[in-house]
């Protein structure tokens, strides 16, 4: 999926990227993606979708099968030095040097990325991550959440322009998650581009400027978060009835209403972007039928619902391709989670 109205050159440009692992499994099937300078980009996708593979290829840990990646305009293979200097990576797994001290391992990372020693910067990074009082502790003595902070400190030690966070909040406590998002916001303010993957959709919803959805090695959508919610958002109209109904009257069949709460709640799901939402006609029909309601409420679907719908639709499409009987309609009830 291509982006239009891109302001300036993208800081990362991925073109036609594929990856087939040794066993023959194709983890990426032709990915095109542009990341804008200074944005927070959230990559959403179910387990095994290829998020980590994509990140690891950009960072130089996994070799791509086909396609190109440029980072800050530099080819990530031919000009790997320039490209990699720009990147800080916090990988999904907690890989740490158990016997090293927090300070030593952070200082090591800075040197490894070709920067001259700068104890003041290391101190700042460790303080920002509440690691300063642990600077002399050996990493193996730290809790999982603390180790995660150390990984972040290492990634920030060389002042990268781009930060990759691969599932940074998986298995992390509430406090650290809050700290982490505060830090991400601060980094963005200082101009750092941030690409994160997450399972927690509400995080993407809160944090990201743009959202990409990847499923089965394909980017199936890239959108501004606000546009995405609006565009794909289904709205729900919830009517609390004065008198309970035993069933949805046949006169209301065309709206495909759902009845809940022992007949007290009527729910109508509609596409807020559609030309005809069906709401006014529904109201008129209700009045004709003398169905009174005590309260009315509309609700926008969350990103999570959108996401589940998208992935669900893709799966449904693929299953239909595979089965001989491909006549199953993509029924509307299927598009509800």
């Amino acid at each position, binding site marked *: 999926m291509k982006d239009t109205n891109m302001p300036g050159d993208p800081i990362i440009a991925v073109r036609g990227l594929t990856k087939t*692992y*040794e066993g023959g499994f194709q983890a990426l099937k032709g990915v095109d993606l542009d990341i804008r300078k200074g944005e927070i980009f959230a990559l959403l996708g179910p387990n095994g979708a290829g998020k980590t593979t994509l990140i690891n290829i950009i*960072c*130089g*840990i*996994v*070799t791509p099968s086909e396609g190109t990646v440029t980072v800050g305009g530099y080819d990530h293979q031919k000009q*790997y*030095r*320039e*490209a*990699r*200097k720009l*990147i800080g*990576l916090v*990988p999904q*797994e907690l*890989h*740490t*040097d*158990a*016997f*090293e001290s927090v300070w*030593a391992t952070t200082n*090591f*990372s*800075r*040197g*490894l*990325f*070709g*920067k*001259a020693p700068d104890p003041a910067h290391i101190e700042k990074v460790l303080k920002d991550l509440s690691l300063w009082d642990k600077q002399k502790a050996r990493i193996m003595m730290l809790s999982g959440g603390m180790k995660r902070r150390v990984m972040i400190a*290492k990634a920030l030690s060389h002042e990268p322009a781009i930060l990759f966070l691969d599932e940074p909040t998986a298995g992390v406590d509430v406090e650290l998650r809050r700290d982490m998002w505060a830090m991400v916001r601060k980094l963005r303010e200082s101009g750092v581009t941030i690409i994160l993957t997450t399972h927690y959709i509400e995080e993407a919803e809160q944090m990201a400027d743009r959202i990409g959805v990847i499923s089965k090695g394909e980017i199936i959508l890239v959108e501004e978060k606000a546009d995405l919610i609006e565009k794909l958002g289904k709205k729900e109209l919830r009517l609390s009835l004065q008198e309970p109904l035993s069933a949805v009257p046949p006169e209301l069949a065309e709206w495909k209403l759902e009845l809940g709460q022992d007949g007290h709640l009527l729910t109508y799901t509609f596409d807020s972007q559609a030309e005809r939402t069906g709401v006014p006609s529904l109201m008129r029909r209700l009045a004709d039928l003398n169905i009174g309601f005590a309260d009315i409420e509309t609700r926008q679907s969350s990103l999570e619902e959108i996401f589940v719908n998208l992935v669900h639709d893709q799966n449904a499409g693929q299953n239909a391709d595979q089965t001989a009987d491909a006549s199953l309609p993509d029924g509307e009830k299927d598009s509800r989670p």
Partner: protein
Amino acid sequence: MNLHSIWAIYRFEMARSVRTLWQSLITPVVSTSLYFVVFGAAIGSRMPPVEGVDYGAFIVPGLIMMTLFTTSIFNASFGIYFPKFTGTIYEVLSAPISFLEIVLAYVGAAATKSVVLGLVILLTASFFVDLDIVHPLWMVAFLVMISAAFSLFGFIIGIWAKGFEQLNMIPMLIVMPLAFLGGAFYSVTMLPAFWQKVALFNPVVYLISGFRWSFYGNGDVPVEISLAAVAIFFGVCLAVTWWIFKTGYRLKS
């Protein structure tokens, strides 16, 4: 050349062995001393001098070489295998550093340790036997070159190995026997004519011979051939390492 990166890895590797300094020094010093007690004093006193050199002194270069082979391989293979095992290798793979720089750092650190150890053993030996080194500069040169070559070899083993057992397999099954048969404790000229010819197929013979030449002025083969052998071994290992990074063999998927 990215000196900060090389220095970071080199220092990391050196710090790792400083943490286990006593183990890495005491073990070889004790075992070398045992060799001198057994081979030098107990058996050596009943042996005639070899090529005009006291048997106790004759075995010094071979002993140092044996330790050099095994510790170089061990240090370098462990140095690269361990991050592969724990997963911390991700950071080196994503760093703005070339294959040559990675090799320089890891192999340089392993070789440094071997050279230090070689000198410590030499010092230990000087307590047991009279040492008179004919070509001290060449002696140091061989020490450095052979440490570097075997560290490079160990680096390759570390990348190739899929388990800790495999790290030990090559040194124990191939290098130690070749070193024993390669004249660590005897001169190849002491063998029957037929076995002398067979021995010349053993590359380690050339290395030990060259090192012994730097001590006592004569070896089993001319020193030029020894130098050529070191160069060839080093070149082959370098080519293999280059291929490893080119293809990402067992480093990248």
